């Protein structure tokens, strides 16, 4: 897992090493992934367990209020569309965070859980599910349906802040300390979850199990809109961190010599990931694999330059998540599968196939 093998070596791309080629591949991939996202969005809006005629659907979207029956209008405007937005934001958050984390940790296995987002959110969510009726009922009463997501988000932020302060000394953040402290904090988190789970009853256990598999099922406009600023922070950070992350491939000292403010870069990246992923985990539960699969898939196609990789990860992550969610909604209709199952079932084989086909290029 050293730098040399973790990310594709520049020499691996010697065949098309001319920078113009690389840039064109990058731009092309960003464009194609955006188109893919658009196509998946159309598919997601057009399909579901209740068939709605495409023509009526389009007319309703264009503002014709009587194009659909009341039931169909609710299905389109209050169920499918907020869910689409939520899926897009969550997918972007997970895809981009994965890319950022892999760049920051210079490790192909890095994902947002390394900065404590998932474990913090999970501890808080499990507490909210189990203790929301007992010791925490006052909060639960005030926040209502938002109790679980708010708690999970606070849990994610609290854990990330804790890790950041543990790893930062005299203004310098040690990535290695962050990684190791992250493992320790995750272990503590799992122990706390175990403790709370022990006191849970069967229904709460079912809720916890489903939460850990993730779902976009509870999507409402309120929840989707609440995510916008948090994911917005991350997307806004993308142009500012992409050069820095590229330089970081060489190593921290080298990146500094190239003129990158490495400490600011770390802070910005961690903040961006914590805010977007914290919000994503809070509203959609733990959705695994997107943060790993999407960046690697794209790297295989377009090379490691974060300048194009980050935006492509946003589109690709959103496309994969929305596509997976569409399958979840249809495949066992009128019931629904947890989305974590589908993202792994689609993502992993595609990823493996690409990896096997291209392994020579990576010296694996």
């Amino acid at each position, binding site marked *: 897992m050293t730098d040399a093998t973790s990310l594709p070596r520049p020499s691996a791309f010697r065949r098309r090493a001319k920078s113009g080629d690389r840039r064109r591949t990058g731009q092309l991939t960003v464009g194609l992934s955006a188109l893919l996202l658009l196509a998946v969005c159309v598919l997601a809006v057009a399909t579901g367990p209740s068939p709605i005629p495409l023509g009526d659907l389009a007319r309703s979207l264009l503002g014709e209020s009587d194009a659909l029956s009341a039931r169909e209008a*609710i299905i389109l405007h209050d*169920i499918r569309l907020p869910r689409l937005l939520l899926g897009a934001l969550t997918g972007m958050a997970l895809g981009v965070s994965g890319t950022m984390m892999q760049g920051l940790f210079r490790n192909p296995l890095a994902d947002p859980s390394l900065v404590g987002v998932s474990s913090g959110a999970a501890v808080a969510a499990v507490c909210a599910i189990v203790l929301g009726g007992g010791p925490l009922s006052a909060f639960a009463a005030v926040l209502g349906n938002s109790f679980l997501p708010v708690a999970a988000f606070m849990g994610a932020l609290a854990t990330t802040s804790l890790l950041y302060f543990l790893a930062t000394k005299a203004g310098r953040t040690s990535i290695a300390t962050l990684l190791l402290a992250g493992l320790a904090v995750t272990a503590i988190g799992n122990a706390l979850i175990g403790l709370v789970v022990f006191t849970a009853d069967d229904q709460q*256990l079912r809720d916890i199990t489903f939460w850990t598999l993730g779902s976009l099922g509870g999507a409402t406009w309120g929840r989707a809109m609440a995510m916008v600023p948090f994911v917005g922070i991350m997307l806004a950070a993308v142009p500012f961190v992409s050069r820095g992350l590229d330089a970081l491939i060489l190593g921290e000292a080298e990146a500094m010599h190239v003129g990158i403010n490495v400490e600011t870069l770390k802070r910005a990246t961690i903040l961006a990931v914590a805010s977007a992923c914290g919000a994503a985990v809070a509203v959609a539960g733990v959705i695994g694999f997107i943060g790993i699969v999407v960046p690697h898939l794209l790297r295989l196609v377009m090379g490691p330059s974060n300048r194009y990789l980050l935006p492509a990860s946003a589109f690709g992550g959103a496309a994969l998540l929305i596509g997976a969610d569409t399958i979840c909604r249809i495949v066992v209709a009128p019931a629904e599968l947890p989305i974590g199952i589908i993202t792994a079932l689609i993502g992993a084989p595609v990823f493996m196939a690409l990896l096997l086909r291209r392994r020579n290029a990576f010296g694996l």
Partner: protein
Amino acid sequence: MVGIYGRRVEGLVESRKPPVWSLRKGTRDTIAGALGLALVVTANPACSEEGGRSAARIVSIGGAVTEILYALGAEERIVATDTTSVYPPEANGLPKVGYMRQLAAEGVLSVKPDLILAVEGSGPQQVLGILEESAVPIEIIADAQTPQGVLKKIEAVGAAVGKEAEAKALEAEVAADFAALAAEVAAVAQSNRKKVLFVLSLANGKAMVGGKESSADAMISLAGGINAASGISGFKPMTDEAVIAAEPDVILVMQTSSHALDADAVFTLPAFKATPAAESRAFISMGGNYLLGFGPRAAQAARDLAAKLYPDRIASQ
């Protein structure tokens, strides 16, 4: 967790009020408040009118609710149920909208319901919220693991679908069954009462048992037994030594199509080998949904259990 809490416990999870909730009034109030509000805001205006009562496309969520609808003769009006609705067997032929706690809003709406009957504890909350906005009347049926709770459930379902007369008749029948059983059980002397240990599962040789506040506990006491796991609350793993110390006279398990526990498997375990139950090989296996569903067959199930506990004193019907 899925292994332990997967399919096998569905019959039990479906319509049982969670024990912790009954302990903690706060939760109940929160949930009852939220659901109550839902009822007041959307369901009542529509339901009290003809819309709900004459509903012809009912989505029934919760095994006990579905069973009651069948018992009231409203089965041809059900268009979909949840995965916990497994009785009567015909209910399995209907489309399933998923597990009662994990409903999908569009999935439920896709069967074009004009009434949603959901047992207390159905969810998730946001999905119920979306369904409420869809203007389909939703009726939440209160759930309690007592004879009174069963009668209330029947009454509520009957009122929701406009079958009050049938519901009254069924209530009277069930109430009479409970009363008759209670009288017979009362005649069993305290000293003759059997200690019953309900074993939900044996994962890895570890017994998951039904403690107090669990649906199994409620059923055991209705049948005149003493819960051997009364030191535990809810369904929890019990250590081997505690099983021996509890000295159960009878082991009670749920019979399911898969994963059925049999007497041999249980009594060869060290923890169970040393119990009085193993000596007399007292082992009772009953259908999970039947035993713990607290639907219209609850009185009958309690009598069946009592008859198995005290064969010379109480007759099964």
